[in-house]
C-alpha cells in the first residue's frame, strides 16, 4: 500500500480546516498508536502522534515531538529489527516488524510496528506513517510457554547448587569488594576481616580476628553511640546506616570513616552475624569541601574585577562626547552587554544549587529566534578557526522566551560541539519547525558519548571519565542548559554513538 496525495489536498490547507479537525479526532479515537515523521528534515523527526501512542508509551507529545522514533528502543539498540527498519526507510519501502520498545517508565513492551512512506505526486517521500500495536501480552504468553519447562529443570539444579555456591559466593564478595568488611559474632567479636580492611588500617589478621571490635587499634570503635546501635542490630534487624567516625587511627592518622552494618543470615550455616562495612571518606569529604570553597572564592575573586569593569564602562558612557561616532557608541554598548552577560554567568555558576530547586526566574520577551541562533553561530565561528559551522533551516519565528538564557544554551551546545570534536572540522546546526514546536539540533562528528554517559552528562558536576582526561573544565553547562529548556516547557536530549559523534537537540513549544 502506498499513500499519495495531490498538492491541493495538503492537510494544512486553511479551507480544509473542518476536515482536518475531523481527521485529528478520528486518529485520536484509533486504538492503534499513530505517528507521522517528516522525511525532509534531518533524522526523520516526529511531527505528530495520536493519543493512543501517548497511552501506549507513557510519553507525552511534548517529550517526543522532534525526536527520531528510535528513543523507544532505549539502550536495547542491537536488535536486528532496527537494521531492517533503517533499510526500509532508506529505500522508501513499507515494513512490518516486532521490536522491543520501552515505555517512559522503563517498562518493556513488544511493539508490532508498521511503517509506510507517503509520497508527493512528484515521487518524493515527504513523510512516513508509523502504526503501533502493543503485543506484549501475546509475546509474553508465547515466551512463557517456552520458558516454563526450561525454568522448572533449571530450578532443581539451582537449588542443589545454591547452598554450596552461596557460601563461596559470599566469601568471594567479601574478599573482592573495595571496602573494608568485618564479620562479627553476636558478642561483636571479629570472625573474619577482608584483605581491604587489613590494608586500609595497616594491621595483620592476627591483630584482628578473634578480638573484640572495641579492642581493635586504639579503641577507635569504642564509641557509646555506635555501641548502642550495633547491639540493637541482631534483636531488631535495624541496620546501622552511614555512621561517621572521625578519629586519629594508629598507623594511618586522622581519618573520617563511614560505617554501615547489617544483620546477615545464611540458612543452614549460621544465623546471627553482623557485617560491618567501613569506608574511608576523608578524601571525598575534603573534595566536597574544596568544591564549596572554590565556589565562594570564585564568586569573590571574579566579582571584584567585574565591578571595576562595569564601573569604567558606565564612566565611559558618561564621558563620551555626544558627537562621537556611532561605531564607538555601539562598541561601548556591546561591551556593557557582555559584561552583564559575564555577571549573569558568574551568578548562575553560584546559583546552581538554587537552580536545582527550580528557582531561576525567566525574563520572557519576544525575539527573532533565527537571528539569535545566527548571531551565536557567527560569534562561535569567529572564535574557532578549526571548525566550520554550517547553519541550515529556519523557523521564521518570533519566539517569546528568555533570550539571554536561550542564547546561553545555544552557545553552550556549540562550544561543546567544538570542544569535543577536536579532530573533525564540521558542525551542523539545524533549525526547524516540527508540529507546534521549534527544534534546534547541533551535530558534531567527534568523540561521541557512550550510552551510560548519556544519562549522566546532564547531572550537576559530571563529565565522562574519557572526556575528562582530554578536556578539563567545569561540567555544569549541560545541567544548566537542561534546566533552562525545561523552564521554557521544552526538552533537551542527546543522540550519540560512541566514536561517531553526538547530536544535541532541543525543542521549545510555540505557545
Amino acid at each position: 500500500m502506498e499513500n499519495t496525495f495531490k498538492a491541493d489536498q495538503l492537510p494544512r490547507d486553511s479551507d480544509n480546516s473542518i476536515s482536518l479537525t475531523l481527521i485529528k479526532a478520528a486518529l485520536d479515537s484509533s486504538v492503534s498508536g499513530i505517528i507521522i515523521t517528516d522525511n525532509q528534515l534531518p533524522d526523520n523527526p516526529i511531527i505528530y502522534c495520536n493519543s493512543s501512542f501517548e497511552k501506549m508509551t507513557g510519553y507525552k507529545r511534548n517529550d517526543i515531538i522532534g525526536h527520531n522514533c528510535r528513543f523507544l528502543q532505549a539502550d536495547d539498540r542491537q536488535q536486528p529489527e532496527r537494521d531492517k527498519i533503517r533499510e526500509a526507510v532508506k529505500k522508501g519501502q513499507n515494513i512490518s516488524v516486532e521490536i522491543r520498545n520501552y515505555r517512559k517508565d522503563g517498562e518493556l513492551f513488544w511493539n508490532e510496528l508498521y511503517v509506510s512512506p507517503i509520497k508527493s505526486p512528484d515521487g518524493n517521500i515527504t513523510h512516513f506513517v508509523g502504526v503501533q500495536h502493543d503485543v506484549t501480552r501475546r509475546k509474553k504468553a508465547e515466551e512463557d510457554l517456552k520458558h516454563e519447562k526450561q525454568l522448572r529443570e533449571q530450578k532443581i539444579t539451582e537449588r542443589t547448587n545454591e547452598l554450596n555456591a552461596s557460601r563461596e559466593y559470599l566469601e568471594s564478595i567479601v574478599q573482592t569488594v573495595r571496602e573494608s568488611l568485618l564479620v562479627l559474632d553476636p558478642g561483636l567479636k571479629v570472625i573474619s576481616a577482608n584483605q581491604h580492611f587489613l590494608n586500609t588500617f595497616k594491621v595483620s589478621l592476627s591483630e584482628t580476628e578473634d578480638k573484640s571490635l572495641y579492642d581493635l587499634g586504639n579503641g577507635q570503635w569504642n564509641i557509646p553511640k555506635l555501641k548502642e546501635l550495633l547491639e540493637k542490630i541482631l534483636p531488631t534487624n535495624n541496620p546501622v546506616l552511614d555512621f561517621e567516625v572521625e578519629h586519629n587511627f594508629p598507623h594511618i592518622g586522622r581519618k573520617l570513616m563511614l560505617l554501615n552494618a547489617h544483620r546477615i543470615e545464611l540458612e543452614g550455616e549460621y544465623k546471627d552475624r553482623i557485617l560491618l562495612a567501613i569506608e574511608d571518606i576523608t578524601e571525598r569529604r575534603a573534595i566536597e569541601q574544596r568544591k564549596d570553597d572554590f565556589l565562594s572564592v570564585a564568586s569573590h575573586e571574579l566579582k571584584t574585577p567585574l565591578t571595576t569593569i562595569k564601573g569604567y564602562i558606565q564612566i565611559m558612557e558618561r564621558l563620551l562626547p555626544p558627537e562621537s561616532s556611532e561605531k564607538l557608541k555601539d562598541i561601548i554598548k556591546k561591551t556593557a552587554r557582555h559584561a552583564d552577560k559575564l555577571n549573569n554567568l558568574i551568578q548562575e555558576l553560584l546559583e546552581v544549587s538554587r537552580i536545582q530547586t527550580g528557582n531561576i526566574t525567566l525574563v520572557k520577551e519576544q525575539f527573532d529566534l533565527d537571528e539569535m541562533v545566527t548571531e551565536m553561530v557567527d560569534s562561535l565561528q569567529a572564535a574557532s578557526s578549526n571548525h566550520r559551522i554550517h547553519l541550515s533551516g529556519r523557523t521564521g519565528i518570533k519566539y517569546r522566551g528568555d533570550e539571554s538564557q536561550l542564547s546561553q544554551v545555544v552557545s553552550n551546545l556549540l562550544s561543546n560541539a567544538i570542544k569535543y570534536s577536536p579532530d573533525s572540522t564540521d558542525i551542523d546546526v539545524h533549525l526547524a519547525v516540527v508540529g507546534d514546536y521549534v527544534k534546534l539540533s547541533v551535530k558534531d562528528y567527534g568523540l561521541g558519548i557512550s550510552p551510560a554517559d548519556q544519562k549522566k552528562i546532564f547531572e550537576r558536576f559530571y563529565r565522562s571519565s574519557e572526556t575528562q582526561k582530554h578536556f578539563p573544565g567545569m561540567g555544569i553547562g549541560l545541567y544548566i542548559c537542561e534546566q533552562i529548556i525545561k523552564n521554557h516547557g521544552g526538552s533537551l536530549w542527546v543522540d550519540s554513538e560512541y566514536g561517531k559523534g553526538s547530536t544535541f537537540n532541543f525543542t521549545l513549544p510555540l505557545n
Partner: protein
Amino acid sequence: MKRKILICDDDEGILEMLEMVLDAEDYDVTTEQNSLKMFDRMAQVQPDMLILDLWMPVLSGDQITAKVRSTPAYQHLPILIISASRDGAEIAKNAGASAYLAKPFDIGDFMDAVEKLDTQSAA
C-alpha cells in the same frame, strides 16, 4: 568644604575606579589598599565617611567597622560596606555598618548610597 571619603579595598583596580567616580562628584577621596594601615589613615585624613570591602587579608571590613564603632568619636561615622560574598549584608549589619552594597553594583546605585549617607550625616 569638600567632604572626605576614605576607601579601603585590597583590589587596586576597584579603588582607582571608585576614586575616579567620587572625584567627579567633587568628593575628597583617599584610598588605602592595606587594611592594617586604616587606623593611621583615619587619624591622618579625618574622613567624613568610610567605604570598606569585606574580605581583606589580615583585617576584614567588619573587623574594622567594629573597631571604629567602639571609638566614641566615630560612633556615628557613615560606613558603607561593599562585598561580593553571599552573606555580606548580614555580616555588615552585625558589625554596625550604615549601608551595604553587593558587588557588582551599578555606579548609579553606588552614588545614590553615598549621597544618602552623606546627607543623613550632614543633617
